[in-house]
């Protein structure tokens, strides 16, 4: 029925074949010419490549632009050279214009391309939890380090209540760990949003919507669990069709049930803006609460600031850039000077990802995937980046950050204004 998906799938089926064909010859991709490396170490001598795979087409572009800027700023901190190696960076897109957002086959092809390039020592990304499901097994088999700035679904790294029974083992076919992330997970974000709904918004009756993706549906489930513990009444809980263009009928139904709050588990790309807009259109005056997938200017722009001001609450893992002190504040200042705009919330995590990788390369000073991976996973008390503060942060046994913070902001005058931060 969906001819675009079909064509995308057909195109993507052809891509891995090309990639493996290229990798099999032992040459480097991108036509760099291979150079005179010779001997055992393939690839270009003296060069380490870091790649990122993020949705660079579609409405997530505003957010991923700032992640990429963050990565580039981190590389510039070292003057593009770490230890004995020149750092090259490739900014890959895991989205297609036809789908307007991340695309499984493209993410998979990116992972395969990274594995096949002997210069690639770290894979930064992806941005979407569902995309991580696709690239994680590929990179795991190859033992290539993967650091994500933004994926928050807990099941990718740990077994907790609410994740699928075969998670996270199914993402680790090689039975080793190679994935870590610098943002905290939804098992914190979802429940804390419910606490916020009960304590600050004084909601008694909530209506839950989700976008039927791993991230959005998962968050909605975790939010619901906590609501039930808090004895909030769930007046409705359903998925939306993200291909739909408007939700007038749905919002009229929700208005009839008269909830105190609508929770939307989803992203700007899965119609967060339209949901908020149609709520106003149907005369629903209660607030909307959304997770970090909507914490970006594109969300405000697509919904129209007038529809959100004072009634849209959005949570973010970590802190809003305006709340940072010390190195974080310094980063925001430098960012503004360099790019003439304020960074989106995930710019920090792009910077942090690249920093943690580059520091590890500096320590290891070898072009060795395994050694770099080991060094990154062993990160403790990391203060070189922007988010760590004085004590710093590290990766726990699952590869998750020890920095467990969530902030909830409200939209005022078309901007996010932090309202409450919880540290756990």
């Amino acid at each position, binding site marked *: *029925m969906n*001819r*675009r998906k079909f064509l995308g799938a057909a195109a993507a089926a052809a891509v891995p074949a090309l990639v493996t064909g290229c990798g099999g010859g032992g040459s480097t991709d991108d036509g760099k010419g291979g150079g005179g490396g010779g001997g055992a170490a393939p690839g270009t001598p003296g060069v380490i490549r870091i790649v990122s795979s993020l949705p660079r*087409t*579609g*409405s997530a*572009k*505003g957010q991923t632009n700032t992640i990429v800027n963050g990565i580039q700023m981190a590389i510039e901190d070292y003057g593009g050279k770490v230890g004995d190696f020149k750092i090259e960076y490739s900014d890959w897109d895991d989205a297609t*214009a*036809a789908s*307007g957002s991340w695309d499984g086959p493209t993410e998979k092809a990116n992972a395969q391309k990274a594995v096949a390039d002997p210069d690639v020592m770290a894979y930064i990304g992806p941005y979407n939890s569902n995309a991580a499901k696709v690239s994680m097994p590929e990179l795991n088999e190859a033992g290539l380090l993967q650091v994500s700035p933004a994926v928050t679904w807990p099941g990718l790294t740990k077994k907790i209540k609410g994740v699928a029974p075969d998670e996270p083992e199914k993402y680790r076919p090689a039975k080793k760990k190679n994935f870590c992330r610098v943002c905290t997970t939804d098992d914190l974000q979802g429940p804390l949003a419910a606490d916020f709904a009960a304590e600050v918004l004084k909601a008694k009756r909530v209506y839950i*919507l989700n976008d*039927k993706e791993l991230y959005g549906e998962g968050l909605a489930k975790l939010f619901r669990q906590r609501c039930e513990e808090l004895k909030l009444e769930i007046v409705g809980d*359903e*998925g*939306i*069709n993200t*291909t*739909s*263009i*408007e*939700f*007038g*009928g*749905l919002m*009229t*139904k929700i*208005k*009839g049930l008269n909830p105190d709050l609508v929770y939307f588990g989803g992203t700007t790309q899965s119609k967060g*803006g*339209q949901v908020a*807009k149609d709520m106003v*259109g149907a*005369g629903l005056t209660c607030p909307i609460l959304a997770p970090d997938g909507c914490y970006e200017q*594109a969300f405000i*722009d*697509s*919904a*129209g*600031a*007038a529809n959100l001001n004072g009634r849209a609450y959005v949570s973010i893992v970590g802190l809003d850039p305006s709340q940072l002190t010390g190195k974080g504040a310094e980063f925001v200042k430098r960012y503004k000077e360099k790019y003439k705009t304020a960074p989106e919330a995930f710019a920090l995590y792009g910077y942090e990802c690249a920093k943690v990788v580059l520091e590890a390369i500096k320590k290891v000073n070898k072009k060795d995937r395994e050694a770099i991976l080991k060094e990154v996973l062993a990160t403790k008390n990391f203060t070189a980046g922007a988010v760590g503060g004085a004590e710093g942060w590290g990766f726990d046994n699952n590869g998750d950050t020890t920095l467990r913070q969530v902030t909830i902001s409200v939209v005022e005058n078309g901007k996010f204004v932090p309202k409450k931060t919880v540290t756990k």
Partner: protein
Amino acid sequence: MLDSLATALGPAFYQYLLIGLVTGLLYALIALGYTMVYGIIELINFAHGDLFMLGSFLALQVAIWVGAATATGEATGAAALPTILLMLVAAPVFCAGLNVTVDRVVYKPLRNAPKLAPLVSAIGVSFIFMNIGVFWMGTYDLNFPKLVPQDNLTPGARIALNYKHIMVLAVTLPVMVALTVFVRYTSLGKAMRATAQNPTAAQLMGINVDRVIAATFAIGGGLGGVAAVVYGLYNNTVGYMMGFQTGLYAFTAAVLGGIGNIPGAVLGGIIIGLVRSLGSAYVGEQWSEALIFAILIVILIFRPNGILGARTREKV
């Protein structure tokens, strides 16, 4: 009967009917573009949905140019009514011109080729249009200025009616009546029907078939342009992907009503609008899309030519 249904289904039932009717009329307006072209040259013009999308982009561009909207599509409050009228002229003219051009350049050389060739070309044109849309406005969902207020005009009544609903009804219904009158009573309309029935015979009777085909593309494109403006003003969001989903619904509406049949397209559009709205309310938002296609399949099993599609019998 409606009252007893409303008692059973709750007081918002009438509101769902209104929403369904309004969105259904929008689908119908786009469906007319599919059905008219199919009626004349048996081409499913897959690019029609994306033509509609480009029409809405042009309308947004016009609003920005005349200062009725900011660059991010927020209404500035200036000159709403003249802007709407200007959009209602500019977008249909633009879409009609574009549609005729595409016919001349792409479909006309393939007029005597096997049916699949123009069909595949239409899919190609659809992608080209989509990429033009990306190039023009980017890949973000855009705000379309709120030039029509949506305050409730009937507080306390069973149906909450606002200016947006009135606007959709006030634009789409006269356009559809005018189209029906045109096709039934004018000489060009008669020529269209004659060409639809038998192009060769029509040519032998002195009808300039190429002119008739061009006129059909112009009218179909123009209706798509009207729909684009009304849709933007009603929904306040446009984006380069909207042509696909809306086009799919509209195409389904055309098939449901009997492709090639003008009243059938309108009926099909309204049915789809109602199924979408009532399905979302009583079955669940996530099932509403599946429901539309389930109903399509059931109807096609019993009436393979669509609800009003008996007249297309000779086009085998």
